[in-house]
């Protein structure tokens, strides 16, 4: 590694776990050599695979340090081992079959250095679909930016929307998140990214700074293999969603779910539903008589039994839970609550901006009678209850002037994703112009501007008759950062307008992105 680069910034530790991928590791480490940011250490951990000593030695770069372990202990253990030796202010990642473009580290360091209250930055990566050709060569079938989202804490708790290899974070954040979870076989990266979100904001750099590879058939990626066992995958997802790193959580709301079932069997159902559906951090409080609690066998995490006197009514049981719970928001859950995605998160999202004079209703099964469930700030509910000691819950809310109502669409969580599904539905129906308009409005309301601009350009192209608008969008995207997709779309627009030479120019550019050895690398 002889490429000179910027050396005057903070040290970055790049973690490079590897296991039996000698043929791609060489290329991966080679991409580090070309980094314009030179002040890094690369900690390569061979997780019990065939030795890669010769590959590292050939680099002859003191910044690259190899640890070869005899036993195969998994990726999380490799990352933890590397972290134990890390000295950098920031931590970045490189998998042994991925590639970083030369500006990757520099772009992320510059971004983090410019932030006051943000310890994580991430970029976009190309997902490279490939199949193995003769001699094990990777034949590229396509390079797409499959994920390009601005940070959304609620969404990140539900699904991973950052690619771990694209992430750089402050190393000291790991003191609060704890190490990588070595008990996980898959989603190790999401578990860590999610835990980081408890303590810091993330900043998205909507720029492609590398590539990760996905074989079309017979992928050897552990993450792909792990997903094939669907039950185990779901179990891991739920376990990660239930994870609660040590407090304080400066950036994450804590939802205390108070269950008010009629009897013990109903309590079991409620607890299982909360575990299956809740994606924001939560703890479940079950205020019930001790005898009833004793009959329950709950092996799920985040469960807090709250013994109450025999015969206590729902209000008394809620008061008992309120005295114990630690969350800053509380969900009061009657037995007829309807569970599903965002069952409590919409109300929680609304409650985050609440002044305590509104309780946000949970959905209920059909037209069930009885008191509604709701979410509101815990302190506000405590004040309500103290003011009307012993009164029924709804009565105490009414007496305190608290309105119970569902969240408005503007107060709901995951609004961007709802809008995206609506736009995609319009595409499927062939309503391309309406879909294009949705993408325009989504960019105005939710950012994700680059992604939305591409979607809008594509919809306008499909609609026909709006090629000039589509071309303007494509040109702008390609002026900022051309990708194979945006160049292909612009080429099609030129071709449709019989500007064939312009189309050829864009297609040749796309080709150079897809197969750099066929021409000048463009990134």
């Amino acid at each position: 590694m002889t490429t000179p680069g910027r050396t005057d910034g903070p040290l970055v530790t790049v973690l490079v776990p590897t296991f039996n991928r000698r043929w791609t590791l060489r290329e991966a480490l080679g991409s580090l050599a070309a980094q314009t940011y030179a002040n890094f250490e690369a900690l390569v951990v061979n997780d019990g695979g065939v030795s890669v000593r010769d590959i590292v030695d050939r680099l002859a770069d003191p910044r690259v340090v190899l640890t070869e372990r005899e036993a195969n202990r998994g990726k999380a253990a490799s990352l933890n081992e590397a972290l134990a030796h890390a000295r950098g202010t920031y931590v970045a990642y490189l998998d042994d079959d991925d590639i970083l473009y030369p500006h990757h580290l520099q772009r992320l360091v510059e971004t983090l250095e410019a932030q006051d209250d943000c310890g994580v930055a991430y970029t976009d990566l190309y997902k490279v679909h490939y199949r193995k050709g003769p001699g094990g060569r990777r034949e590229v079938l396509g390079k797409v930016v499959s994920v390009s989202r601005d940070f959304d804490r609620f969404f990140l708790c539900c699904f991973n929307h950052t690619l771990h290899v694209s992430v750089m974070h402050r190393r000291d954040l790991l003191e609060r998140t704890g190490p990588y979870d070595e008990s996980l076989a898959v989603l190790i990266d999401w578990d860590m990214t999610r835990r980081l979100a408890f303590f810091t904001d993330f900043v998205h750099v909507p720029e492609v700074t590398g590539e990760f590879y996905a074989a079309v058939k017979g992928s050897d990626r552990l993450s792909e293999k792990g997903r094939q066992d669907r039950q185990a995958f779901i179990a891991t997802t739920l376990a990660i969603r239930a994870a609660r790193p040590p407090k304080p959580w400066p950036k994450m709301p804590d939802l205390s779910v108070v269950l008010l079932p009629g009897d013990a069997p109903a309590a079991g159902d409620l607890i299982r539903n909360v575990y299956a559906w809740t994606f924001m951090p939560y703890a479940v409080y079950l205020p019930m008589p001790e005898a009833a609690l004793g009959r329950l066998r709950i092996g799920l995490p985040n469960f807090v039994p709250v013994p109450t006197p025999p015969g206590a009514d729902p209000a008394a049981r809620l008061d008992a839970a309120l005295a114990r719970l630690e969350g800053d928001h509380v969900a009061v859950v009657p037995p007829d609550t309807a569970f599903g995605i965002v069952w409590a998160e919409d109300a929680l999202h609304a409650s985050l901006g609440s002044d305590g004079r509104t309780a946000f209703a949970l959905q209920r099964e059909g037209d069930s009678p009885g008191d509604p469930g709701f979410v509101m700030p815990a302190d506000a509910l405590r004040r309500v209850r103290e003011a009307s000691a012993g009164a029924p819950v709804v009565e105490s809310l009414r007496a305190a002037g608290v309105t119970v109502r569902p969240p408005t669409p503007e107060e709901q969580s995951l609004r961007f994703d709802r809008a995206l599904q609506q736009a995609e539905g319009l595409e499927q129906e062939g309503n391309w112009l309406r879909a294009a308009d949705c993408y325009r409005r989504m960019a105005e309301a939710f950012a994700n501007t680059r992604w939305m601009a591409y979607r809008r350009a594509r919809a306008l192209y499909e609609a026909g008759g709006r090629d000039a608008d589509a071309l303007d969008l494509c040109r702008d995207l390609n002026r900022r950062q051309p990708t194979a997709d945006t160049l292909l779309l612009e080429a099609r627009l030129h071709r449709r307008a019989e500007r064939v030479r312009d189309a050829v120019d864009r297609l040749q550019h796309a080709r150079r992105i897809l197969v750099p050895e066929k021409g000048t690398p463009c990134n």
Partner: protein
Amino acid sequence: MQLTAEHVVVEEGLEQHYEVLKELGDCHTSLGHYDRARQCYEEASVLAPEKAGPAVGLGVVELQVTNLDAADRAFRRALDLDPGCAEAYAGLGMVRQHGGRFQEAFDLYMACLDQDADNLVALLGLFQSSCEMGSFAKVIRYLQVYLDRHPGDTSVLYCLATLRARDGQYREAARAAEEILALEPENAEAAALLEEVRRREPVTEAPRP
């Protein structure tokens, strides 16, 4: 609201490299860069050996350089890969037309239009073949179907006007020519055709039911 991994991560781009190469081949063909076009189609067919597109592209290139045997082979290969490939039928029709086998060409164009009623190559080929053979009725129907969907397409409208004139339907031919001139007042061919059918109409056209 549904939210699954499929909604979050879009699996697109598996054919992107193929599409770039195929488009590039088509563009090179348009520009007359036939060797480059061949190379693109060959690489595209390696990436997607199951697709008929590159074979069609190669067939078009061979047609352009009047290598009819090679074109024939390429279009047949395309049909082997995709028996419903309209472009391959149209290409084979052109090969037959070049060889003066108008009836075969006519049938192949019809087969193409059965798959894709909007295929302009087949429509125009059908028009030319039928002019050679003097049979117009079927062609007129296909042109009308096309024009119902693309009412402003003056090149097809002109074919229709010509066919009607040749079939002795002078009033309809005049109407079609007038329609072209309304859209393109400077269209000299349409103006000449209109003049000709107006000259003939009062004398020769039989009353129609």
